[in-house]
């Protein structure tokens, strides 16, 4: 979980806003390679539900990560708005499954707050900060922690 000191270190960030369930999450655009329409991944025998399979993205085989399940949200069937956000971060390539891609935005540093203390620690670990907006909050995901959590996760 981030401390108030860490939040203060955040600078304005260009982000891609995505929706998961009723929540809006922000992914740093520096790590986003592209957004693709959902297509069913090829399941890999023995893989856990949060890693529902692999896709071919321009000749590369990428794992699909069901972000809902990683964040403890209920699983959902794909809809017309479901998207795959293809990321490269710390030499890891993956496609995040999200309910919808909403917009690009720049989040100013003064908008950030620490994650609520009441959050489940496993989920709070993945949150770099929460940005206040007129119509609600945007949750900034920490991609380094997401990758670390995927590596540690059992």
């Amino acid at each position, binding site marked *: 979980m981030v401390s108030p000191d860490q939040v203060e270190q955040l600078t304005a960030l260009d982000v891609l806003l995505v929706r998961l369930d009723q929540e809006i999450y922000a992914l740093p655009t520096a790590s986003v390679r592209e957004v693709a329409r959902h297509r069913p*991944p*090829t*399941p*890999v*025998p*023995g*893989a*856990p539900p949060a*890693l529902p399979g*692999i*896709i*071919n993205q321009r*000749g*590369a*085989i*990428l*794992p699909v*990560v069901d972000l809902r399940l990683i964040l403890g949200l209920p699983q959902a069937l794909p809809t017309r708005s479901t998207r795959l956000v293809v990321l490269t971060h710390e030499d*890891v*390539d*993956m496609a995040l499954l999200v309910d919808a891609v909403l917009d690009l935005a720049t989040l100013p540093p003064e908008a950030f707050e620490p994650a609520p203390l009441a959050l489940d620690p496993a989920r709070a670990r993945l949150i770099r900060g929460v940005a206040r907006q007129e119509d609600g909050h945007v949750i900034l995901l920490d991609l380094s922690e997401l*990758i670390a959590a*995927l*590596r540690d*996760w*059992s």
Partner: protein
Amino acid sequence: MNDVLLLVRTSLRRYAVRRSDLVGMRTVADPAELQPADGGRPLIARELDALLEGVDRAEQRRRHALIVSMRRRNVALLVDAVEDLLERPVVQPLPALLRRHLREEWATGALLVGEEVVVQLDLRAVARSVLHRMSTAARSDT
């Protein structure tokens, strides 16, 4: 050098398997036909999609048996069809992020067949799991 791969189809999807993992292939109308004559090496037959995908095949049709030779017995893994042979396949390793979480080490890579992503299987590892499960079940019965 890449091994020659066979493209096989189960009821749900296609997989690639190494031809060198097999000692034989047979087409059978009934898996009971696979049992050896007296004195032959014992053979265990299993539906591949039941192992991989938990599919319960109530309706048996003409099957293709992929036969893997293990130390004391053969294991026949049954599939719907053997569709193709790939002589120079370009197999990519599975992403490390995924590989580390696999319950069984059955999937070893992936390749593109046209636009389709096909998982490559290690049938010797699958056969080992079949025999391991049988011996575990036998121990728990005694």
